[in-house]
């Protein structure tokens, strides 16, 4: 006859109690380890609280507990016994499979290899989003340049006056500002731009249309602003303002759109996966891109607040530095980590 519940409980009670104690000690943050007993002075007995199970012991107890749980379920032991084992196994499971490192090595790999590689893997989405962003810029920009009134079809008169105030000629020392100082604008750019890019990414979930619409809208605004300021004769002020942080900000906007489009693409055309699996796969693939555009927007916010707006720097210098930044961004995204073989690293670690 199979073991009765009472015999089962009596036989393994000690195992469960030991595991429970070990887990409680770990939760309280005490170091586990059998070595504690060695610190006792001669003639002193180890009490129960002093000897805690070591990590290896907890793993062993956990596997035993799993076995007991499987047996208890199979033999339909009373509910309170099964529940107790379930709770114990779940607690130990959470503890044993927790994250160990805080991801510094992962962060290094992300910056050096994963982020640029993930961006390159999105090249077709990037192409589409770039076109959706750049074409409206040129279309509206040229239309506004030919007929300055065209700007009013995109934005209303109040916003036009705001553009004029931001980049117009009344204030020689400050660019791109109506009021406030650099720190305030730094905070504003971070809150506003990063928030917008997150929305642009998430909107991709709506079959990719959301991302494309937001990208196209931003392209329209940018085109209208640029065209309007060129007709006003403020082109140098405007372009010397945007060129440096634009390298990061415009790239980041396109990246967020491409990552969003990838999500929408996964919903529309999941291939041989289910839609849910395809979405999860797409989100794993695009996470490095999200990391990349967030960091780029932080860099852009700092440059926009402290460098782009500085009126005392000659436009020529800004063009040179801005050009270097564009080259840097493209070189990073296009070239960094090429030829890096993650499988080789894995093999090296395994050896």
């Amino acid at each position, binding site marked *: 006859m199979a073991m009765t519940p009472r015999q089962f409980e009596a036989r393994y009670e000690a195992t469960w109690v030991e595991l429970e104690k070990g887990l409680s000690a770990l939760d309280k943050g005490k170091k586990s380890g059998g070595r504690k007993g060695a610190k006792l002075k001669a003639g002193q007995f180890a009490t129960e609280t002093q000897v805690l199970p070591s990590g290896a012991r907890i793993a062993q107890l956990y596997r035993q507990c799993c076995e007991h749980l499987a047996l208890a379920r199979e033999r339909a032991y009373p509910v309170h016994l099964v*529940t107790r084992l379930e709770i114990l196994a779940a607690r130990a499971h959470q503890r044993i499979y927790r994250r160990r490192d805080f991801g510094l090595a992962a962060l290094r790999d992300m910056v050096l290899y994963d982020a640029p590689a993930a961006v390159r893997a999105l090249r077709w989405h990037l192409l589409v989003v770039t076109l959706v962003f750049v074409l409206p810029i040129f279309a509206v920009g040229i239309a506004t340049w030919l007929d300055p009134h065209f700007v009013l079809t995109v934005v209303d008169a109040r916003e036009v006056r705001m553009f004029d105030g931001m980049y117009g000629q009344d204030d020689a020392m400050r660019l791109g500002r109506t009021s406030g100082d650099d720190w305030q604008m730094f905070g504003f750019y971070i809150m506003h731009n990063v928030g917008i890019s997150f929305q642009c*990414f998430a909107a991709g979930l709506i079959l990719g249309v959301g991302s494309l619409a937001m990208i196209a809208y931003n392209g329209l605004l940018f085109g209208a602003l640029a065209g309007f300021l060129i007709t006003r004769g403020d082109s140098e002020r405007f372009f010397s303002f945007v060129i440096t942080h634009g390298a990061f900000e415009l790239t980041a906007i396109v990246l967020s759109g491409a990552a969003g489009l990838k999500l929408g693409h996964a919903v529309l055309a999941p291939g041989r996966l289910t839609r849910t699996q395809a979405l999860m796969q797409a989100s794993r693939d695009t996470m490095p891109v999200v990391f990349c555009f967030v960091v780029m927007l932080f860099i852009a916010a700092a440059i926009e607040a402290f460098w782009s707006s500085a009126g005392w720097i000659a436009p020529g210098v800004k063009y040179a530095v801005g050009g270097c930044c564009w080259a840097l961004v493209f070189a990073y995204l296009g070239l960094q980590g090429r030829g890096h073989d993650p499988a080789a690293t894995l093999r090296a670690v395994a050896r």
Partner: protein
Amino acid sequence: MTLDTALLAETPEGIGILLRPAGAVPRALAYATDWFIRFVTFSVAAALLGGVKGVGTGILLIGYFGLEWLYPIAFELLPGAATPGKRMLGLHVIMDTGLPVTPSAAVTRNLLRVADFMPIAFAFGLLSMLMRADFKRLGDIVAGTLVVHGEQVRLAGALPDVEPLAPRVPLTRAQQIAILHLAGRARRLTLERVDELATLAENALPPPDYAPGGASPAPIRPGPRLLAVAQWLMGQR
């Protein structure tokens, strides 16, 4: 179709960990609590920093960004894996495999809250939660995460301690399970209700006053007799 929303996540050890996904109402309450905490934090910061022009406003705006986007991510990656609102309602976030939540999953599910919010007032997220047995919103589906109740409700306790009695006939496995389950819940029920339920098992229970070989006679009421049989099934002889 089962009404129980519990999910089993299989572990490498070959056992199933029980996960109890939280529904829309506790999650909405948790969100409201978090929203309130963030609102108060921001108001206090605004009152303190409002006087400082420039730098103060800058810090305030960065703080707003942090409260909006980083607050849930940071709290869900700390031990406990729950924002203060979720913690108050006894919820936490885990992967749908039963493992602790990973950093990239925490980022994904919180950024995609925007998609859940569309078109207005979390309509998509709510629809998604109502249509799925595991109550995932869109962000949870993509990240592969679950919001679960932490504490398991214990409906059954230890069996009441009584003198064991052998059943009248050999019991099938299903009958044994039913008797043990009822006995485990006996402490939560009134005596009358236990009697009422135990009469359904009358054929399996020993008759009232049954006393083989001069042993103490079996109780008259069916409830105590059922508890006695349960003790016998537990292995007490």
